[in-house]
Every structure is written in C-alpha cells, then in structure tokens.
C-alpha cells in the first residue's frame, strides 16, 4: 500500500508535520472517493429505513384488502392497488424489508460457512483440504438453480418463511468464498508472523481467529456484500417461480409474479416492485465495488 508510506501534509507555520492515518481511516477515505459506492450506500440505507419505518404509521397494512381494485397510483395509494385491492405501496415496502432481511441472513450464513471451510482447508492443508475442496467442487458442479429447486420445491410449500429460504440459500452460496479464503490462507500461513505465533506456542484456533482471518478480512467483507446482492436476486427468482416466500408474506419477486399477467394494462404492478428490486441490487453492487477499492486495493478489476 503505497499511500501508507507518504502520509505527508505540509503546514506553513510549523514546516512539515506528519499525519498518521490508520488502516480503517484509509479504507474509509478510499471508499468515500468512490462516488457511486457512496451513492449506493445512501440509496440502500434510505430504502431500508423507509421500508422499516414508514409501514409503522402508513394507513394500510400490506395484508389489508381495500375496496379499490386495480386503481392507478394516486394520493391515497401512491403505488396504486392490485387486482385484489391490496395497497401496493404497503406491499412493496413489506417486500423490500423481507428481501433485504432474507439476503442479510444469507450473507451471514454463507460468510460463516465459507470462512470456516476455507480456513480449515487452507490452514491445515493435506487431507482436510482435499476433502473439503472436493466437497466444494461437488456443490459447484451442480448448476445452482437445480440445487435450489430441489431444496426449495418441497420445503417451501411446508415452510415458505423467509428464514427457511435464507437457510437454503446460505447453505448453497458459500462455495466461492471458501475457495477465496483458502487461497488467501495458503499464502498467509507461510508468512513470518504466523511462524512467530507458532514459535510462542499459540494454538491453531488463536492463529486462525486472531491473525489469519483479520489479514483476509478485505475479500471476506467484499464477498459478503456481493452475496447480499446475489441473494436478493436469487430469492426474487425463487419467489417469482413460486418456490420462495409464500403468501401472505410478500417479497419483491412474488409481487412481480403476481402482477405479471396484468402488467401490460396495469403497469404499476410491474414497475414499482421491479424498480425497487433493481435499485436495491444495483446499490448493493456499487457498495461492494467501493468496498473492494477500499479494503482490497490489489484486486481491482
């Protein structure tokens, strides 16, 4: 990191002063230099807050059925109503919250699994590595959607809650991170500070948790962020296929699916949920891109 070596600022009165900047501050500065990432963060947080706070005092619940069917957007129903009479604004906000909530849980599960598997494989090597990586290859070899379909086709009918969908997605989406962490660990374990830890008799668990994971944290955070975006996308596809979130719960994918037959004549049924869906994914992808610049400067594509 070249920036660390020359953090010089000139001060006219006192000549040269050296300002020290910590790793975190450097990362924050690099992130804020990425304008799209900052915009993404602002948009994402704003959408999340609105979808969490507004429903508390909005005069329609997302499950409530009004006597106004398929009305166009108006002051009373900003996003219009659907064929049954649901207020689409309330529905889209509830769906946004469900989608984000699901995706965050997926990212947590996938990150924990991927980091654990990758750490163990990369740190211990040998048979543990061979077994874990073959298992990872096996999951990678099945086309993702097939695995998800098998897992969710029957499960979702019994338990179509966001929690189960998140669990299923999390159990499938950890493989890329595992490979990345393993790769990082293979080079980290040859470094002097790991050797030094071994010399003072530190336990494996301590070396992994206190020294190696912190050194690989950049790619892990970036991957976790991109997993959130991917999870929203995949959850939307599953719900669109009727295999994800089940009624009366709504997700952005299930709303689009519900409105698709009438989309040509009642376009708001399509454009509001689709707009929220694409904006959310786009915002998270930009955040991920900014985090990559900030935390993992070498990996810039």
């Amino acid at each position, binding site marked *: 990191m070249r920036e660390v070596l020359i953090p010089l600022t000139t001060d006219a009165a006192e000549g040269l002063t050296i300002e020290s900047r910590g790793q975190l501050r450097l990362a924050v500065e690099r992130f804020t230099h990425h304008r799209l990432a900052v915009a993404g963060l602002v948009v994402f947080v704003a959408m999340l807050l609105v979808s969490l706070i507004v429903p508390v005092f909005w005069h329609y619940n997302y499950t409530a059925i009004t006597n106004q069917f398929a009305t166009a957007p108006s002051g009373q129903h900003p996003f219009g109503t659907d064929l049954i009479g649901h207020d689409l604004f309330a529905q889209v906000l509830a769906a946004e919250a469900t989608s984000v909530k699901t995706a965050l849980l997926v990212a947590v599960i996938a990150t924990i699994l991927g980091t654990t598997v990758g750490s163990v494989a990369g740190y211990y090597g040998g048979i543990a590595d061979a077994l874990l990586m073959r298992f990872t*290859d*096996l999951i990678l*070899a*099945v*086309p993702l*959607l*097939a695995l998800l*379909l*098998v*897992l969710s*086709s*029957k*499960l979702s009918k019994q338990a179509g809650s966001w929690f189960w969908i998140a669990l299923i997605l999390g159990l499938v989406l950890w493989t890329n991170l595992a490979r990345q962490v393993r790769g990082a660990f293979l080079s980290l374990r040859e470094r002097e500070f790991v050797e030094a830890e071994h010399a003072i008799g530190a336990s494996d668990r301590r070396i992994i948790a206190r020294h190696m994971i912190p050194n690989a944290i950049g790619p892990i955070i970036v991957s976790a962020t991109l997993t959130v*975006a991917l999870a929203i*996308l995949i959850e*939307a*596809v599953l719900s*669109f*296929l009727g*295999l994800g979130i089940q009624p009366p719960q709504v997700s952005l*994918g299930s709303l*689009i*699916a519900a409105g*698709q037959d009438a*989309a*040509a004549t009642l*376009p708001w049924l*399509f454009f509001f949920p*689709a707009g929220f*869906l*694409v904006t959310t*994914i*786009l915002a998270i*992808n*930009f955040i991920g891109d900014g985090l990559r610049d900030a935390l993992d400067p070498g990996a810039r*594509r």
Partner: protein
Amino acid sequence: MWAYLLRRTAAGILVLLVLSFAMFILVALSGDPLAQLRASPGTSPATIAAAAAQLHLNQPLVERYWGWLTGLVLHGSLGSSYTGQPVGSQIAQRLTVTLKLVVPAVLLSLLIGVVVGVVSAVRQYKPVDHISTGLAYLFFSTPVFVLGLLLKDFLAVDVNKAAGHTLLYTVGESTPGINGSWNVFVNEVQHAVLPVLTLTLITYATWSRFQRAAMLDVLNADYIRLARAKGLSPRRVLFVHALRNALIPVTTIVAIDFAALLGGALVTEIVFSWYGMGQYLYNGLTGAESPDVYAVQGWLMVAGTAVIVFNILADLLYGLLDPRVRYA
C-alpha cells in the same frame, strides 16, 4: 497432456457418480409422486399399491438407484419418467429447444462482450467507458425475469402496435401449422428474438467486464510498450499483440457459462414459454407427478456432463492459447 486429460476425465466421472447418487436420494426423499392420487377421493389402496409398484416406489432407495445406474451403464438408457415416456428422447427434444435459445445468445453475447470490453479498455475513463460500465452494472443487477417481462409486456406490445401486425412473438418457440421451410424459419426467428435478447443482455454484461479487465492488464504489459516502441501501427498492436492475449481469460469464462446454460435458461424459458431443459427440470421437480426422480436424473446427467466436459475443455484451451501453462 494425455495423462492429464485421463485424470480429469476419471475425476469428472467420479464427481458425476457421487452427484447422481446424492441427487437421487435428495429428490426421492423430497416428496411423494403419488400425493395427487392418494388425495383424490375413491382411490382404493390396491390402485395406489399398483401405481407404487409400477414406479418402483415400493423398493428400497439404494436398490432403485442401482437399477437406474445399471440401466445407464449397461444399456445406455436413462429409463422412463413417471409419465411413462423414455427420458432419453424427451431430453433430446428439450435440448434442441434449449440450443435454439442458448447458441444464438452465447454467440451474440460473445461478440458484444468482446467489442464492448475492448472499446471500454482502450478508452478507459472516457464517456464510452462510463456508459458501458453503467449498462453492464444495470444488466447484471437486473433479474432475468424482470428484463424478460419488460421486453415481453412492454417492448413487444409497442413494436407490434407500431408494425400493425405481430412482428415479435412472446409465447413459445414457433407457431404450429406453418408451411414452407423459409416461412418456418422466419417464424422461429420472430419467436426467438426476445428470449435471445433477454439472455444476451444478461450474459454479455459480465463477459464485457472480464474482457475489459483482461484487455487493461494486457495494455499495461511491457510487451505492448515494446510493440509500440518498435513503431508498429496502433491497429497492429491492438489486434495482433493485445487482443490475442486478452481473449485467453475470457475463453474460459465463456466455456463455463455456456455449459451452465446447456442445463437450461429456466427463467427465460418460463417467461417466454419455451419448453427447454430448464422447464424439463422444473416440471420434474414441481409438476403433476413430482418429484420425478428419473427425469431429474436424466437432466442431471446431461447438464452435469456438460459442465464437467466444458470445464476440462476450458482448461485445455487455456493451455493451448497460453504456452506458459503446464498441465500439472
């Protein structure tokens, strides 16, 4: 190289074997194909027992798997689906549909991805780069079904209205009952435009980013500086020295993505009602007599083999294009 190829093939077959066993158990346990029959009133236990026997549901799972495996290995047969039709011929038919969708989409994506990626890299941080980057982000943040519905419910409706007749079809692969090979061809193209466009836009976005990154790497390499210093024409430097090398990493990704698409572009197929490989799997898992273990196994054999074969091909191709790579 032959030893490498042999080793990879053997490993591939092993993976496929383990995969097929795991999938068989998982699918068989995921539901009851006779649920509808059982639920319908007035079905006698004898009828249910007969149906179960016909579908081999009364045998132990491992025995059923063994029966399927020996059928495949000894007779090259993928068995019969629960609807009674041979899985092999069903899949051959579905694969044709998928190929009509996937091959044009992959060729188009490759063309657009490479051109956009190269232009973006050569004009880095210029307006054209910003626009192509923005579009790429937009397309890979858009779920396939959103893009598909947008084209189907809005673009197609407007285009057809403007043309005064149906120019773009949005349902199925072709209109039945059309005579003359030219007319059939035109009709099929009219059906294929929107699904192929949907798949192309989603696919090209990622590839153009890879192409841009690869091209940037190459353009900053010493041998390009040397080529320029020798006084070669910019065109020659760009196409002969730079592009040739920048295509190598992209080849791998294209091969792997193409293999994945051979398993079906399920969402595109559903939006435009194409009955390809994706829908075959989907019906096998969620249709009337689901889960249809034999249909899913048949699909897995074709889709899994494609993924494994193209992964090996991609690695071989990599070595062929980049002589520094050794097969270890």
